């Protein structure tokens, strides 16, 4: 009998194992339906697959690719939004590698340089208005260096360097693997500030261990020469794992959560309104959803592939995780609205045309529109959240918000934007941005190399522009400067001419948060919130930010110019709202009179009919 059972078990194992292997199913993939979080008491492995033990001499940093990858499909995860900055393919929910649409333009990375008055939107995702790092001849290694303070690993962190110098540096620093712990470590010790510090030191392979505070890391690969040998590790980074972490079987407990806390998201996705002084930051509220008890990840969900839903109807499977999806009734057979306790809005007195012309966020998100769009900081662009003696001061790019403009979907909504500024070489109609180092090399003295690194950009005079353009115009290429919505060129006489240019249009991305409560949304005081002849919604201004010294002061643009609406029409339309009360009075009074006439003659008609019926025939 025992033999039979053994044979049956073996047979089952033989039958089942290939099936699991065929679909590449690892323990951590998918879900068996149990909603409790598995306890992650696991072994640590370095990047070569060797198990790390507490009393190892000169222990290596653990690798998330190997350690986490034993149960989770690392490749599938790494193709998700957070870790995929340039690939046009990703894994879908079925585990198939498919082409992906980069979708709605989002917040880019920005190459800034105050000396050359440069701020260029960068993205490998080919969003309109952005340049890829390749176009600016920025290697993946250099790009990683630029963005690593607020970066979760993967993507540019794992591209093999090609230039010999960078290849050597990468061998020393290691790859910046997907740092799963940056989001999923529920331990309050998880420290992204430490991750940024290690990234600044180019200690990429040490980041997961150091930022989780499971190990103390000292040393700096930036200080190491090209002849450093990691195997010998003299003067290289050293690390000491906390001995209390390991149990008797040399496994370590990770306090892993499937639903990362808001704090984790905030590190890279915080924004600051600079019109509110830093001392008054405490007066700012958070998103109403968070205050209602939701977490970021309640709406921004993902499967194994980490293609996190962005709340856009057209993307992925997330239709019901949009504003409409949770808040509005769904005509489908199975009701989907009211998810997560979302109340259905009444929108009393708001004509339905508003829902065709505006995004939900137009009225509900960001700050209440002001006469002038304020300057903002974002965590990723301005490297906020870094504490300590090396806290950077990053004034650029100059981001403005909320700017109410028409987006790609044809609806008006709140956006953040900045005006690209860069030097470019024009050959025929094609314009290529020139990397700031090259501009400095050719015309650093004209631009004034005295400017401190951390300073904001200084005003640029026409003479300076002329001087730089002259030096950039060589060999059939014409120098161009783009800033503040204009392009600047030299004419035949050597004078600077400027004109509005499509290439100089602002780069904008939607501002979905913070969502305000209904009582603080546009329209709560009815039409006058927007339909007045000076309403910020239409006639608020945004600075056409430029370092070029303008003769006529600061140039601004009205939001209506970015909304694709005729200004005169909207002004007249808004002015007509003054007469609305009269319209209502006239209409009600007229209706009242008509009712009286109908009643009076109706009574007479009834009386006449009654009389006719009661009269006896002669």
């Amino acid at each position, binding site marked *: 009998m025992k033999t039979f059972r053994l044979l049956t078990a073996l047979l089952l194992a033989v039958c089942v194992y290939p099936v699991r292997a065929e679909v590449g199913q690892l323990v951590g993939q998918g879900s068996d339906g149990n909603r409790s979080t598995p306890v992650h008491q696991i072994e640590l492995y370095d990047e070569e697959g060797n198990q790390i033990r507490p009393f190892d001499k000169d222990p290596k940093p653990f690798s998330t690719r190997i350690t986490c990858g034993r149960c989770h499909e690392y490749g599938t995860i790494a193709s998700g939004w957070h870790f995929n900055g340039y690939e046009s393919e990703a894994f879908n929910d079925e585990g198939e590698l498919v082409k992906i649409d980069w979708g709605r333009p989002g917040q880019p990375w920005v190459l800034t340089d105050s000396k050359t008055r440069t701020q260029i939107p960068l993205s490998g995702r080919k969003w309109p208005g952005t340049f890829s790092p390749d176009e600016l001849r920025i290697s993946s290694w250099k790009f990683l260096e630029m963005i690593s303070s607020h970066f979760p690993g993967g993507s540019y962190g794992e591209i093999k360097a090609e230039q010999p110098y960078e290849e050597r540096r990468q061998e020393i620093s290691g790859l910046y693997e997907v740092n799963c712990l940056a989001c999923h470590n529920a331990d309050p010790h998880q420290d992204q500030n430490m991750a940024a510090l290690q990234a600044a030191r180019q200690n990429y392979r040490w980041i997961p261990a150091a930022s989780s505070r499971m190990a103390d890391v000292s040393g700096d690969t930036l200080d190491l020469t090209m002849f450093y040998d990691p195997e010998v590790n003299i003067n290289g980074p050293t690390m000491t794992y906390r001995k209390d972490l390991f149990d008797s079987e040399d496994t370590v407990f990770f306090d892993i959560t499937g639903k990362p806390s808001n704090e984790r998201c905030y590190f890279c996705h915080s924004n600051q309104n600079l019109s509110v002084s830093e001392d008054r930051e405490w007066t700012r509220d958070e998103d109403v959803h968070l205050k209602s008890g939701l977490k970021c990840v309640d709406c921004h969900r993902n499967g194994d592939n980490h293609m996190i839903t962005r709340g856009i109807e057209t993307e992925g499977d997330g239709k019901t995780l949009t504003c409409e999806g949770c808040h509005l009734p769904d005509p489908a057979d199975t009701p989907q609205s009211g998810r997560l306790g979302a109340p259905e*809005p009444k929108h009393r007195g708001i004509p*339905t045309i508003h829902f065709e012309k505006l995004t939900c966020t137009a009225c509900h998100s960001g700050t209440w529109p002001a006469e002038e769009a304020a300057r903002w900081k974002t965590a990723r662009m301005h490297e906020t959240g870094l504490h300590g003696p090396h806290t950077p001061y990053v004034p650029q790019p100059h981001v403005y918000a909320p700017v109410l403009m028409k987006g790609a979907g044809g609806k008006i909504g709140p956006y953040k934007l900045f005006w690209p500024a860069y030097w470019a070489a024009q050959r025929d109609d094609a314009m290529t941005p020139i990397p700031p180092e090259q501009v400095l090399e050719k015309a650093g003295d004209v631009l004034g190399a005295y400017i401190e690194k951390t300073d904001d950009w200084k005003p640029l005079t026409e003479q300076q522009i002329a001087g730089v353009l002259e030096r950039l115009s060589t060999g059939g290429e014409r120098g161009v400067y783009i800033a503040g919505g204009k392009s600047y060129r030299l004419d035949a006489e050597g004078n600077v001419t400027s004109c509005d240019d499509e290439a100089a249009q602002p780069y904008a991305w939607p501002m979905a948060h913070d969502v305000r409560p209904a009582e603080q949304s546009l329209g709560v005081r009815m039409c006058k919130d927007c339909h007045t002849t000076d309403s910020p919604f239409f006639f608020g201004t945004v600075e056409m930010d430029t370092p070029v010294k303008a003769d006529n002061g600061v140039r601004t643009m009205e939001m209506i110019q970015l909304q694709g609406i005729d200004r005169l029409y909207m002004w007249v339309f808004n002015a007509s709202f003054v007469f609305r009360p009269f319209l209502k009075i006239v*209409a009600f009074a007229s*209706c009242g009179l*008509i009712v009286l*006439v*109908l009643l009076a003659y109706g009574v007479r008609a009834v009386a006449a009919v009654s009389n006719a019926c009661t009269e006896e025939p002669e």
Partner: protein
Amino acid sequence: MFQWISIIGFSVVFAGLFLHHLIFPCGYKPRFTAGSLIRKKVHLLTLLFPEQKLNWPTKFRKLVFVLGLFSFCVLLATGFGPLLCGCRLHGYLLMIHATFAPVFIGCAAIVAILGAGQYCFNKKDAGTKAGFWVLLALSLPVTLTMVLSMFPLFGTHGQEILLDAHRWSALIFALIAIIELYMLIRMEVLKDTER
């Protein structure tokens, strides 16, 4: 659907009136000479003017009626014009529409007060009189559906219902008003030719 029903409705009404005019002619003869056509147009135009023999209240009523008629034409053109072209009422047309709407309903109320007595039913012109009272009654939903939507009373679904109610009641109002106008013109022309 509303667009197609509107197109069919207006087509049927205009075709019906044209046929009626062919089968039951009134006014000057011969009917289709150049001189006759011009004379008819001039005659129609003169119907808009108040007659000298009228007293002041009647003249005032006529002027209000003419203003109301003009407003109706504007509302008809701005309301159904874009719809028949396959687009929606918006922009300057919407502003013109909203400007003439109170003028029209104001005129309708004045005409109702000053002229209702004429439309008491007796054995003559029952059709025209019935049309007057139906139009008067219909002017209420046409107006109130829009005015009420301007108050914070109805939510999104309510707004949709109000807009639909406005469109449908306005369509019925417009079709009946066109027939009523035709009958009024015939009445006046017949009166004039009898003189």
